[in-house]
């Protein structure tokens, strides 16, 4: 079998199922790769060597016993450190939870285990998923495998970097404002934010409950689809979980055909602030889709320009409440308990010491937006914008099957460039946020390198809620056509580590 770490998840699963290779060999190859390169990349916060090998052995044993294996059995995966894993450290990128070993598995973690997926470890992320660069991790930044001095996107930079560095063929991210799609775009990988409510949030450490959505990250659209089907589906432990069949995303990825589809180009995403090379690759993608038989329509969604401000009111508001539980009483960090201080003082000292600046900023912003006297002007207005954005989407999807845009306005920027300029940082999520506010489905798929910096550019595809399969049809068609054109997947152009 060829280089185990470069295989797709689909190939790896097939090789394990046929006995060509054992799950333990596959896991070991990836653990070796992590040992070799992660010091440079820093995609992982915790590598669970024993757990991974035990899971792999169990898959091999089941195969030996003649059991039928699932479509991802034995495939290694990098799990964003925002999902709880029973007995395995879970920090959400924060000092607040350093050393915490949860007493329970997230529903997503449980489903992965049940599918025989081998969880290699927990990946780096912006603290509590707040950020677009992974620089807000309390445990240091992750490097972008295309250029280690640049950011891998965020908040799920660790998961995307693990894929791009061949440390894992599959990864899990969470997307609150773009935290799966934007890292996918800047690392040349595939990232999908499923329809809100299709992947359980039980065990996902909440940033913004009404926006957070877990989803698959992979190097190919088909791999993402396989992972999507493994993790999606109704969960009675999550009241906001949709009780409906999961769209047939794997079939759609295999279909990879856009003939006759109506594709809308969002007029508002482009122009000032957008890197020329990003727009160039985007326009080429539009032409590509046209050449593949799609009908291209320009669509105006005027309220999208208000998405970013609405998001920066809603997400901080919810986070100010969600993060109140970190109070030094029941778990996690406790600072300053000298026997004389009150619980109130110890809580305030612990939160001061345990949260990084971005988290504090958002907690205070959210506290402000929810305060009496400001609620209507801020949180209340933001919720109205949410309605208007949803209406824009509804109108658009009355006309087209999917919408497309660049995933991010620019390619990966250098680590440190926007670190203390929150407003500049927030612009990275300009194109991705509307889908979180409306709760629909969206994907980022690689569409080339920006000529000026040779860094990956992502094409964003947006589909109506519960029509996630359309993302995979379009994404797989674009991927196949571009791979044909280039003669290889984009990621093969990344420099060796």
């Amino acid at each position: 079998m060829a280089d185990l770490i470069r295989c797709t998840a689909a190939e790896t699963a097939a090789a394990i199922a046929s006995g060509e290779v054992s799950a333990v060999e596959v896991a070991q190859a990836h653990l070796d790769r992590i040992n070799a390169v992660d010091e440079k990349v820093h995609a992982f916060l915790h590598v669970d060597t024993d757990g991974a090998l035990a899971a792999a052995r169990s898959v091999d044993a089941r195969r030996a016993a003649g059991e039928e294996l699932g479509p991802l059995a034995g495939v290694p995966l990098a799990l964003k450190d925002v999902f709880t894993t029973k007995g395995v450290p879970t920090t959400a990128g924060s000092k607040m939870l350093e050393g915490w070993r949860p007493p329970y598995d997230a529903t997503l973690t449980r489903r992965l285990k049940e599918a025989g997926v081998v969880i290699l470890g927990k990946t780096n992320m912006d603290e509590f998923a707040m950020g677009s660069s992974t620089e807000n991790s309390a445990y240091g930044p992750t490097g972008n495998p295309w250029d280690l001095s640049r950011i891998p996107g965020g908040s799920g930079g660790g998961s995307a970097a693990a894929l791009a560095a061949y440390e894992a063929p599959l990864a899990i991210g969470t997307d609150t404002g773009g935290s799966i799609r934007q890292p996918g775009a800047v690392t040349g990988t595939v990232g999908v934010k499923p329809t809100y409510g299709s992947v359980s949030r039980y065990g996902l450490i909440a940033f913004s409950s009404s926006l957070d959505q877990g989803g698959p990250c992979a190097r190919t659209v088909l791999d993402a689809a396989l992972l999507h089907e493994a993790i999606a589906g109704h969960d009675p432990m999550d009241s906001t979980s949709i009780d409906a069949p999961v769209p047939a995303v794997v079939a759609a990825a295999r279909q990879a055909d856009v003939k006759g589809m109506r594709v809308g180009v969002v007029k508002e995403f482009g122009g000032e602030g957008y890197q020329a090379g990003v727009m160039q690759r985007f326009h080429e993608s539009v032409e590509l889709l046209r050449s593949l038989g799609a009908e291209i329509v320009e669509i105006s969604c005027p309220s999208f320009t208000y998405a970013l401000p609405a998001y920066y009111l809603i997400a901080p508001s919810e986070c100010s409440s969600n993060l109140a539980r970190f109070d030094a009483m029941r778990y996690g960090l406790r600072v300053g308990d000298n026997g004389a201080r009150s619980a109130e003082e110890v809580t305030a000292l612990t939160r001061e010491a345990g949260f990084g600046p971005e988290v504090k900023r958002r907690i205070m912003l959210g506290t402000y937006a929810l305060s009496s006297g400001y609620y209507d002007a801020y949180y209340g207005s933001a919720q109205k914008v949410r309605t208007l954005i949803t209406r824009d989407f509804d109108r658009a999807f009355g006309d087209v099957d999917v919408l497309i845009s660049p995933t991010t306005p620019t390619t990966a920027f250098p680590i440190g460039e926007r670190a203390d300029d929150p407003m500049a940082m927030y612009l990275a999520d300009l194109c991705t946020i509307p889908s979180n506010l409306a709760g629909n489905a969206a994907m980022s798929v690689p569409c080339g390198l920006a000529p000026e910096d040779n860094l990956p550019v992502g094409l964003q595809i947006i589909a109506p809620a519960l029509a996630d399969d359309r993302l995979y049809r379009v994404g797989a068609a674009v991927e196949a056509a571009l791979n044909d054109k280039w003669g290889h997947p984009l990621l093969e152009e990344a420099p060796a580590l």
Partner: protein
Amino acid sequence: MSVIDLVPYEEALASYDPVMGLEVHVELGTKTKMFCGCATVPGAEPNSQVCPTCLGLPGSLPVVNAIGVESAIRIGLALNCEIAEWCRFARKNYFYPDMPKNFQTSQYDEPIAFNGYLDVELEDGEVFRVEIERAHMEEDTGKSTHVGGATGRIHGAEYSLLDYNRAGIPLIEIVTKPIVGAGDRAPEVARAYVAELRELIRALGVSEARMDMGQMRCDVNLSLMPKGADKFGTRSETKNVNSLRSVERAARFEIQRHAAVLNEGGKIVQETRHFHEDNGTTTSGRIKEEAEDYRYFPEPDLVPVAPAREWVEQLRGELPELPRLRRQRLQSEWGISAVEMQSALNAGAIDLILATIDAGAPADQARKWWLGELARRANEDGVELAELPITPAQVARVSALVAEGKLTDKLARQVIEGVLAGEGEPDEVVAKRGLAVVSDDSALGDAIDAALAAQPDVADKIRSGKFAAAGALVGAVMKATRGQADAARVKELIFEKLGVTPE
């Protein structure tokens, strides 16, 4: 704590009208918590009924208990409320160590039930209508134990210990509209309202509503306005007043305190106050530096509750007979006065009396035991009537033994004492203590002969027609038989022996 000279109650009411608001929290008796599947068994060992959700662990999520919602609707209907067609939960944000998420999942501007009323009956039978503002769903907090410090209270404690078994248990908060026009009967109305609400909750079977166990807790908000004024004064909020008597006392005390402050030209501070059972006073809580801002917003982890109208109507159709109407019916069935009925209610005796009647006792006997001997015992022991270790069936058996002539009232009281002391069933107590009535006439004959021989002068008086003098002889016989004789039978035998026929 500053000392204030209270204004005499009547004087306070001569110048001011009291306005009250009552907030009652009822802990539902569901099997599981409001938002998770943890059990709610009282008295379980600490932190043994706790899961990721009610411990507020990162990543955990709530799911609403259907019976919690159903109970809230039934309470709302029984309080003549409208039931929301669509309502949401909201987060009430504030930090407190007994609250694992540092927000309480509650309801804010969209309560499940609103705009109702409860008619309550005062001691003299007067009916007063208390308007209900709302009833909403929320969750309880954990329990803290304060360690160190002189009194074991929060103040001066060195540290605290937290048990989250109670965290997440469903609560229904019932809030009245301002109660105006009760005048000097305001404290009585407050008490009667809470008592009536308790009966209602019990009749619905949604909670045992034991105030002594914290299953029902009352906050008394009170303000005064000068007579003739139409603008409410500043109110005080007396928290956790946890018995019917305390509700009345707290309202009374606050009326007197407010009047004292206002009479001296002072201003009432809007503040939380604490009621002290021992001396019936209230004291000021901690003054907060800044006004609380709870930053309510719709709970994004839960979806709206939209009770179908058919369901609401079905629940309405299944409501039990409401306590006040039931009391009216029983009062006429038992042929007693409103005051007697009220005292049965206040004693928490109605269901016990009914159960005793069901077990075969005549109504008057059942009432007599529960409202007499047993009420006295409960009062002495400081427990609720229902907590006494005696069952209605046992009371009915004692009553039957008296009816059969096997026990006198006096002996019956000793049997009850035995049952309460854990000596077994009434018949066992009779046997063990040897309490059966001495009804063997020949055994009594000896004692009577002895009494007649000892007091010949009394015997002569009786013979001469002074029948009342027999009491002295009966007393002597009872003493000789250690009280186990039937006094009426003794008297008959004495007259028989002396050959007289009274009347």
